């Protein structure tokens, strides 16, 4: 590998790490949204039951 390719690899690794982090946070956000929806359903059914 040339010196320039090593530089590109180092900066690329940082970029990929940040992207991975964003993907993990996005997955977590989707899970939180799903769980919030389930809780809303639960609260609505409780209210309907009186």
């Amino acid at each position, binding site marked *: 590998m040339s010196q320039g390719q090593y530089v590109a690899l180092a900066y690329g690794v940082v970029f990929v*790490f940040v992207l991975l982090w964003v993907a993990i*946070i996005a997955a977590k956000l989707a899970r939180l949204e799903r769980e919030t929806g389930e809780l809303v359903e639960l609260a609505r059914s409780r209210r309907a039951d009186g």
Partner: protein
Amino acid sequence: MSSRNSLPLLAFATAGLLGLAVVLALLVAPEDADQGISQRIFYFHVPIALTAYACFGLGAFKALRLLVVGGERRDLESYTWIHQGTIFGALTLITGSIWAKASWGVWWSWGSNQLVLFLVLFLFYCAYFMLRFSIEEGSRRERICAVYALFGVALIPVSFFAIRLASDFIHPTVFTSNGPQMTGTMFGAFLVCWAAITLLAYLMYRVELVGKRTDANLRELREALS
């Protein structure tokens, strides 16, 4: 403006500064006479390493506050800072390894105290997660994790100053008692990169903390409703 509403602004500022940092590091800063183009890894590698130290240090500070003042939120803050520290610690090891291969021809050198001590610090904080998830949630876990996080902070100055204490290493010393050993443009680019990486770490900390707090609130709500 509430702290949560300031997150998008922080994200835009971080993205802008990171873009500027990449341009300065790759296009504006002059090429190093000794190492050539591979020296450009320095502009991200060193700020990432300094940020990892800062994250571990802040994690320990929050742990100390937890032990002195108490408060569940400080446990979460300490945990989140340490998590950021391990992310940036892993990046330090990877980018450092790439730079070592480009400059020295090897991916790793066990003869360099700076590298080995940073690896020890990184592994110490990796073990923090094993400890944390092996103890049942509650005040006992908070205290044990806080004490562990505080022990780790002693490794930070040892790792940081190892480069100056040892003489059998090949890791370069850029910042000496005579100031930074680089030109003004290089130093300016380094400072912008440092600010960008620090801001990125702070943004990641804030986002993760919001996620973890929301997670905890939802758990509490689920228990209340069930």
